[in-house]
């Protein structure tokens, strides 16, 4: 009757009921009207009452998203809402996805490299979209808007409105709701309102740098740049406190919290990049690449970025430190030797205590990268040449361009609809790399699997935004302990058999539990296999 023999004929392109209901159409109309006003402003349409039109457009945009979301979920029972995800053009790399991806990418290119197209005027009054946001910026910080202010407003609005959508979608799951409220809070207060208000405190002799307190080095790779250090130090006790906070954030707060809760405390509860990925990026989480190959690439790329940022920051700090040991105790030599010793110690500690947990390529990588760092420091001393062969400024510029702009912005967010929502977090973020190392080697956090209950359906793997093949562990009854896991909890939520659970327990046993036979089978067989291992 039918010949469906081969794999390729397995099209199974379903026709889901994707048509929008009336309220959703109303939401779309409302939201697009708001967006259209912003578009008109971008093209320099002059609005008489800018405050009114700006508020109006932002309210319409937000209201549109909320109306749409409520209409999408109100008639559905609380539970997993993934019907038709792989049939819809937008969420399965269809035409709409490509359109959106290209639009976002172009937007990021303009934002990062051609802000004048958005109306930024360094000397003079802003025009266009950026000028349109001037009233709000002046209200908050007293300064005219910049492209980053406009981006910050839209970014925060996206996390808030799509955060509410996410909460409606996962209203049966308290972990997801509370986690989302947390990212909404940190984005609104820490990333947006507090830094704007801090800018109000500035005067000619007191000038704090724009500081999102939750943005920790090395994600915030510029935190120890000379202009910021100068600015911190010149701003008295508050400035110094902020500088110290910046240093203990990465050296103390981060490892302690990661030890207790895993990297999720940051990546899916606090971080702004994570916040965007978890809210507006949620519809694209299933697009991440789950292949072994992608995992290999991930390990090399993300740790290379980490090495790059350590190198860049070391060179940058070194470049502005003094030679004179009398003036400051922290001079060029102390700093460089200190860095070398710290890195070597860290390496040795991991090598001695956690070597068994590193794969072969991780060992090679760690050795190679340590040699590069130490080698560069040695070359510097032995040759007396310019530090690190490269000029610090050049390194810093390249890092900012390649990683800060292209990777985290253009690729990281622009490609959401194509590669999924966590490309930056998975392949690029040096902060995630550090937290990942801590999580993999020293944390209590792990995802446990529920005995023999896994049915290998694969929902967990499909909806893992970090591209972890969760099923490959679950079906073996093995705990999941992966550096990249951001603890979003969706694998556990979508599991139809209650197999996965995020935990931070003290138990040191069974962190990884690769019994060849799962709970439920012949106890003799379990013993037999254990003996054979």
């Amino acid at each position: 009757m039918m010949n469906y023999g081969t794999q390729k004929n397995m099209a199974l392109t379903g026709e889901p009921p994707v048509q929008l209901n009336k309220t959703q159409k109303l939401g779309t109309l409302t939201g697009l009207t708001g967006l259209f006003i912003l578009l008109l402003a971008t093209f320099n349409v002059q609005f008489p009452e800018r405050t009114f039109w700006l508020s109006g457009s932002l309210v319409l945009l937000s209201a549109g998203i909320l109306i749409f979301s409520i209409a999408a979920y109100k008639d559905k029972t609380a539970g997993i809402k993934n019907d038709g995800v792989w049939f819809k053009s937008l969420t399965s790399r269809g035409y709409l996805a490509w359109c959106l991806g290209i639009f976002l990418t172009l937007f990021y290119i303009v934002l990062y490299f051609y802000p004048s197209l958005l109306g930024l005027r360094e000397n003079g009054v802003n025009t266009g979209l950026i000028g349109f946001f001037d009233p709000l910026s002046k209200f908050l910080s007293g300064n005219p808007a910049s492209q980053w202010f406009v981006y910050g407003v839209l970014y925060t609005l996206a996390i808030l409105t799509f955060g509410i959508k996410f909460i409606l979608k996962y209203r049966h799951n308290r972990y997801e709701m509370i986690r989302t409220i947390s990212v909404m809070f940190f984005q609104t207060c820490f990333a947006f309102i507090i830094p704007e208000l801090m800018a109000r405190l500035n005067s000619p002799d007191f000038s704090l740098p724009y500081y999102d307190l939750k943005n920790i080095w090395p994600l915030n790779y510029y935190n120890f740049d000379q202009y910021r250090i100068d600015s911190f130090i010149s701003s008295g006790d508050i400035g110094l406190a902020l500088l110290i906070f910046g240093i203990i954030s990465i050296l103390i707060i981060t490892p302690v919290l990661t030890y207790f809760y895993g990297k999720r405390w940051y990546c899916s509860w606090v971080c702004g990049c994570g916040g965007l990925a978890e809210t507006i990026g949620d519809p694209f989480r299933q697009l991440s690449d789950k292949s072994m190959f992608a995992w290999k690439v991930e390990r090399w790329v993300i740790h290379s970025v980490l090495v790059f940022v350590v190198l860049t920051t070391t060179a940058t700090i070194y470049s502005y430190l003094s030679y004179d040991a009398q003036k400051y105790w922290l001079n060029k030599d102390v700093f460089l030797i200190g860095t070398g010793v710290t890195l070597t110690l860290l390496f040795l500690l991991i090598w001695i205590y956690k070597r068994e947990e590193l794969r072969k390529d991780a060992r090679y990588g760690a050795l190679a990268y340590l040699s590069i760092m130490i080698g560069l420091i040695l070359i510097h001393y032995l040759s007396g040449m310019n530090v690190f062969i490269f000029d610090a400024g050049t390194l810093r510029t390249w890092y900012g361009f390649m990683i800060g702009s292209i990777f985290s912005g253009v690729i990281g967010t622009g490609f959401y609809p194509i590669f999924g929502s966590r490309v930056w977090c998975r392949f690029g973020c040096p902060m995630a790399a550090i937290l990942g190392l801590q999580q993999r080697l020293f944390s209590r956090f792990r995802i446990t699997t529920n005995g023999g209950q896994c049915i290998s359906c694969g929902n967990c793997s499909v909806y893992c935004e970090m591209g972890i093949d969760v099923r490959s562990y679950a079906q073996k009854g093995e705990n999941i302990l992966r550096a990249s896991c951001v603890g979003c909890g969706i694998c556990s939520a979508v599991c139809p058999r209650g197999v996965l659970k995020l935990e931070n327990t003290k138990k040191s046993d069974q962190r990884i539990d690769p019994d060849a036979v799962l709970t439920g089978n012949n106890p003799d067989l379990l013993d037999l296999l254990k003996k054979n291992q």
Partner: protein
Amino acid sequence: MKHIVIIGNGIAGITAARHIRKRSDNRISVISSENKYFFSRTALMYVYMGHMKFEHTQPYENNFWESNRIELVEDHVNSVTPSENKLVLRKGKSLDYDVLIIATGSKPNRFGWPGQNLKGVQGLYSKQDLELLEKNAPNAKVCKHAVITGGGLIGIELAEMLHSRKIPVTFLVRESGFWRNVLPKPESEMINRHIRKHGIDLRLNTELSSITGDENSCVASVITNHEERIPCDLVGLTAGVSPSIEFLKDSGIETNKGILVDSHLRTTIENIFAIGDCAELREPLPHRKAVEAVWYAGRMMGETVACTVCDQPVAYRPGHWFNSAKFFDIEYQTYGKIHAEKTAQEEQLYWESEDGNKCIRIAFEKETGVFIGMHALGVRLSHMTIDRWLTEKLMINDLLPQLEKAAFDPELFDKSLKKAKAHFQQKMIKLQF
């Protein structure tokens, strides 16, 4: 080096193949005409619902089989000739084996209803069934109404699938409540309510009498045992499955309902084994069925037979019964023995949440107080913990104080087990236990 041939690449056959490879260097061939690569049958529903693509149901990357030296044969076995250790394949060739493992699974039951072979009448088991469903019921325009008969796990999954494409469904259930032969009354009623909440037309105490067709031999309507005619474009037959063993008819391998096997999963022929849905234990385990067509049994038989085939004979002796399912939004897990109707020898404790969407039931022996089983709807339970309690034959009075240890719900969730515990402890006082 032996040549081990496995017929069927479902969970039973593939688990056997993987474990044989772990334990030996024997040559392994796996034959299937359903799909080249192993896929998770239980995930087929998610493909139709658009949660996943078909390739996502395949747990191993395609190069896994070659790198583990497991040969995949895309063919169908027409017959087995044990005297020559030979299989006759559909594509004409034959295949020799030293050891044969039959893991051919099940097929949907058809009880001889008039009209059961009309177009638009189908079961839901194989990948081909799913493709057929995609053709019969792609949307609510082509399939204006569907009738499902058989009030068990596949029936409710099919209802959920069709519902996801907004196809109106009438669900015929022979018993007085959904899965009433397994679920006690309150649990069954909870699921009845939940099914109806999704707009499914659930008809209890109703059976299919016959199916009528139109001039093109397509299904037009069904007639129930209450003489009611329900017009429809699809009839889902989900009244259980039975072993798929027709090809063994003239092989000399002894069969009953399934392929008869001894405690080592060996058939009447020395070098032929049968595992999974198609196997029937000659001596069923206490309180268990001779044929257990569930994922977990298939997997455990695969693990077990691999040892025997690799010269470390192990009897099939699964531990305590466990199973799981999901009914639309409500998850179900069960461990040990929970009877739908309480027996005279046991006592049961039952807790239901105020919103009526969660419940927990515990059973213990009346005489001794020994814990014998536990299940839950809408609450996740820890397999390891409960399995240990069953093995230890824990007394109910020792179990209740530590009931929370059985929790497996995600962090920050309502502590259902804590609430249930308080309720159970009060109940125990009333029972004067």
